[in-house]
């Protein structure tokens, strides 16, 4: 089923992902493995729940005083010799980035992970203007060479098997044909990317945190690609959403304790770098971007999604994400947080329903973003603005009326129970729709729960 604007609804894209059942099983298990590592890491800190609460308060405090802290951040950056730019949307962000690069006649830009530049579609913008952009995080480089978008915010190439990566590398970077050993492939990428680091004219990174009181930005990586990029050329750029602000170093420490533990189960990322100014003779620019965030902050519930620190924990635990893949969400960021921050831009009006409302995401979130409530809120907003997807807008009002009538509901349930008992499964199965695709119908009970309760428990 496609919509008028051409994007396909979540269920349709998930269907494509689910064609290879073995791969879906592998995908789901690989992510659950990360979730289990996260549980062990969180469990090893007795005060885990206490720091989650602190993390939530630090972020809520920063968001509710954001104007103040952004101005403080800018003032301190300037004192540190950092140039600060403000962009309302992706287009303006890309223009700013390009004008800085063009001024320095940059031909090659090495980039480390930044979901924001993905949101802004910066790479194609710069490439069109003659700048070569090299993604340097291994997962990001893989998908860049494969010409695909990321399917996870921390593990961008989690949808690919090592054999696929081996084939891709053999074709694109000249690794041995047929090789698929992860260590061999990683070493090949290390050699390939090192040449790019050494010949780059400028580097760009995302920002994990922006510390207002010191005017510094924090970048976290395991691979060291951000620091390898930034510290060779003389020009460094960093893009951040307005939501990345933390008031001070104490606040940053609270979040740093949780980020890697909740993302991958590590005690901390290998490198957590605090840049408080450019290198000697260098130039450092920070671009602060709104791109819809101030609008989100006007809604009390949706605004809380900006507490997110992009650890990816909610993706790893989500039963829908694990079985539908990151490319089925019609947004750069997939999974529960992708729905929370992307539903308003979803022209298929389907992603708020890529969710069972089980709440597992909310339970693992390190800053207590109420993801299930936010997703529910998006459903309501879609309904209120007349944007329910086709099926739901036609049958949901009927279902509502039907379920509100005790007589109609009891009567039809009685019919369904009898039908399940006496009619053959093949006749009943079509009524269960997609639900019945991988499930058997239950055996019909002999009476309703209400009747059973009256008989057995009513006095």
């Amino acid at each position: 089923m496609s919509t008028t604007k051409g994007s396909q609804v979540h269920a349709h894209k998930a269907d494509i992902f689910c064609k290879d059942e073995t791969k879906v099983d592998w995908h789901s298990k690989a992510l659950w493995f990360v979730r289990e590592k996260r549980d062990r890491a969180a469990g090893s800190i007795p005060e885990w729940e206490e720091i989650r609460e602190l993390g939530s308060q630090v972020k809520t405090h920063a968001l509710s005083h954001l104007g103040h802290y952004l101005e403080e951040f800018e003032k301190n950056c300037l004192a540190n010799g950092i140039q600060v730019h403000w962009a309302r949307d992706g287009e303006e962000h890309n223009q700013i980035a390009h004008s800085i690069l063009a001024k320095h006649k940059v031909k090659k830009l090495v980039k480390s992970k930044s979901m924001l530049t993905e949101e802004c579609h910066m790479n194609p913008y710069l490439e069109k203007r003659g700048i070569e952009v090299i993604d340097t995080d291994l997962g990001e480089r893989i998908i860049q060479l494969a010409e695909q978008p990321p399917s996870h915010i921390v593990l961008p190439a989690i949808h690919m098997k090592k054999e696929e990566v081996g084939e891709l590398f053999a074709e694109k970077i000249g690794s041995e044909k047929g090789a698929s050993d992860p260590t061999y492939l990683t070493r090949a990428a290390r050699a390939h990317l090192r040449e790019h680091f050494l010949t780059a004219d400028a580097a760009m990174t995302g920002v994990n945190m922006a510390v207002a009181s010191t005017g510094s930005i924090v970048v976290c990586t395991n691979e060291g690609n951000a620091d390898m990029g930034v510290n060779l050329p003389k020009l460094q750029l960093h893009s951040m959403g307005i939501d990345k602000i933390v008031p001070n170093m104490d606040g940053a420490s609270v979040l740093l304790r949780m980020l890697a533990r909740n993302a991958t189960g590590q005690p901390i990322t290998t490198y957590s770098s605090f840049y408080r100014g450019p290198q000697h003779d260098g130039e450092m620019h920070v671009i602060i971007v709104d791109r819809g965030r101030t609008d989100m902050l006007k809604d009390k519930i949706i605004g809380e999604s900006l507490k997110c620190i992009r650890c990816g924990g909610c993706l790893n635990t989500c039963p829908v994400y694990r079985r539908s893949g990151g490319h089925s969400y019609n947004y750069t960021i997939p999974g529960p947080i992708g729905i929370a921050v992307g539903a308003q831009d979803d022209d298929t009006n389907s992603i708020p329903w890529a969710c069972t409302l089980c709440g597992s995401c909310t339970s693992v979130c390190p800053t207590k973003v109420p993801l299930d409530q936010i997703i529910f809120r998006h459903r309501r907003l879609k309904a209120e603005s007349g944007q329910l997807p086709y099926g739901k807008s036609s049958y949901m009002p009927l279902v509502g009326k039907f379920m509100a009538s005790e007589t109609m509901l009891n009567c039809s349930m009685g019919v369904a129970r009898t039908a399940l008992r006496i009619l053959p499964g093949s006749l009943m199965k079509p009524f269960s729709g997609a639900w019945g695709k991988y499930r058997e119908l239950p055996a019909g009970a002999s009476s309703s729960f209400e009747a059973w309760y009256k008989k057995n428990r009513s006095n």
Partner: protein
Amino acid sequence: MSSKQHILNSLKKVAVEPVPMPEINIVPRTEDLVGQFETNLKACAGILRREGGLEALQSFVDDLMKEGKQIISFIDGIESNREIPATPHELRDIDFAIIPGDWGVAENGAIWVCCDKLGHRITPFICENLILTIEESKIVPNMHEVSDKVSLESGNLGVYIAGPSKTADIEQALVVGAHGACSLNVYLL
């Protein structure tokens, strides 16, 4: 109106309920800090050298130099065979960089390193192998305890380093040695 002013104006209508900045009073776990540090460093694929201090380090470096390895040291008293070059790019063939760590964090094995006293900030990242030193008395229990101790002067780069660079981007298989150093040895002083 400038984009800055536009954004700041929009932020006057934030619906998120304001809360005060919380007080952070986490009780630190102070028993066996070196043991905690060692365990967590190991979890990050780093190795703690508890015995021998600078003497052991110098004898290790001497052996490496005999093998022809390229070594740059920023620790007084440790002799090496390379000086700070004119450009950061010339550090590309450094086999071992030896750098003092300022603070160690027991709960996660991270070590705070100030990069601006190294001539080129790239040094701890571009070297093939990294050696850090840490004084036993500078190991603190957790990130809260260290955040007001680390110094990061205006214009500088400071970094917490926890182990060698690593990745698991291909099928979740952990590979040590991504873009930064491929090994980390920490000498306890």
